[in-house]
């Protein structure tokens, strides 16, 4: 089955790295197929940032995401920009401290969206003491909620994707992210 996921926020949140970690987990450690792409604009920080993944048990031909099954929003702007592409009955995961949910509740109801809160930024600050790992906290929540990749695969993938010496903090962040949605 083909699953399409979009993760969006703003530049500097580690959105692209989160996408690479998931893609690598699927393709190298879960031995399924994955293609990761990213929005590619001139901005480095502060602008909109987005990564997209196609994950499948069959070879992936068309590499782009059209209507995601899963949308992960780490900013209000990103959520509003992409919510309308989300499939009916799809999964929406948001960082509740980064968005204003009033605006989207009618849409969620109307389209039967499975809606989850994952307070990644707050958890990164308070539990790990490092706001920079919010993306890895979110990875933990994505893994736990969607189950499209295994936690073991993501752990291996984090270890070969983050800078040397930061593995332990990142793995703590990943576990914290799983816990907040259990």
């Amino acid at each position, binding site marked *: 089955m083909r699953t399409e996921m979009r993760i969006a926020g703003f530049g500097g949140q580690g959105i692209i790295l989160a996408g*690479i970690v998931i*893609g690598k987990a699927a*393709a*190298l450690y879960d031995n399924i*197929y994955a293609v990761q792409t990213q929005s*590619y604009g*001139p901005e480095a920080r502060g602008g909109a940032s987005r990564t997209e993944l196609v994950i499948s048990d069959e070879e992936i031909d068309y590499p782009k995401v059209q209507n995601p099954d899963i949308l992960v929003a780490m900013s209000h702007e990103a959520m509003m920009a992409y919510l309308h592409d989300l499939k009916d009955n799809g999964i929406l995961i948001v960082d509740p401290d980064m968005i204003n949910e009033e605006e989207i509740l009618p849409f969620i109801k109307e389209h039967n969206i499975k809606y989850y809160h994952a307070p990644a930024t707050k958890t990164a600050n308070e539990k790990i003491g490092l706001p920079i790992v919010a993306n890895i906290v979110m990875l933990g929540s994505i893994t736990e909620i969607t189950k499209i990749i295994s936690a073991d695969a993501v752990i291996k993938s984090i270890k070969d994707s983050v800078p040397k010496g930061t593995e332990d903090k990142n793995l703590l962040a990943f576990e914290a992210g799983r816990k907040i949605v259990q």
Partner: protein
Amino acid sequence: MSKEYFLQGNEAYAKGALKAGCKFFAGYPITPSTEIAEDMARDLPKNGGVFIQMEDEIASIGAIIGASWGGSKTMTATSGPGFSLMQEGIGYAAMTETPLVIINIQRGSPSTGQPTMASQSDVMQARWGSHGDYEIIVLSPSSVQECFDFTVKSFNLSEKYRVPVIVLGDEIVAHMREKIVIPDNVEIIPRKMPKESPEEFLLCKADENSTPNMPVFAEGYNVHVTGLTHDERGYPDTNNPQEHAKLVSRLCNKILKNREDITSTDSYKCEDAEIVLISYGAPSRSVITAVKNARNEGIKAGFLKLNTIWPFPDEEVKKLAKSADNIIMVEMNLGQLVNEVKRVAQGDAKVSLFGKIGGEIHKPLEILSFIKKVQGGN
């Protein structure tokens, strides 16, 4: 043994170059090819090679031509605006039979166009960009694995035929990540050095349609390299009509007469296809999905993927033109390689173009609708 990676196309190009034995890279970074230069800058010195960031693309191609004559396997990477600046050097490399590899990651154009968006609008430029009659080889990858494989192949073809080889990529494949397998060992064609002694050797002496061996500087051979029409010794001989015709015909024929060895295509469900789609590079990924969907709806569609686009695979396309009623060319421009398809298919099949510009690949559903439109036209 082999190793698996999850990489971007541009990272795979660099890995392919290193695996093929590239020892010299000169370039000027340009989006969307920059990651190739970054990786070569990081990894080439660790592998006994040299990386130079040049002042521009004219200098870049000059440097790799020189380094090739110094005995190294050489490469540069660029995008449209830089590729335009390299054209004179490409002609010089073709005339002097200098092996080298150029990766051009196509972006929206003309001019500086869309640096971060994809296109396939340099197809004719890759073929005809420099002045004069010449033949070169151009490959077009459609997956991260092919970025690696085709780069290795490009180095080999450039050595075998002593010709510039262009890998014509696009922003989409260059920047997407997927799994690739890198074998420990790949087939590598080394530089073919002269068998004769320096006293007996003539630099440009070659049989009809063939490629002479290539000495390097500072090994005792008389190496006179010129873009002027030259004789067997390599010395200018510019007023002799026979000499010029002989030289330029050989430069073209060493490629054209070996078309079968050079060209590569993959076909999918073409045997009984009434409508054959032809594509190369990123849009191939959409075409294959569209063809599978068409088959599911009972439409007899097939797909020919062009791995090499120059020299154009005349035979493969001619064969399909005879067996199919319709050919649809899918490319990210307003109609370039479609004209080659028309030339070859003339009288045998109806040829339509589904071109798209703007930076995004065709969506599979758009292609399926186009197939139905073509089918309905019969």
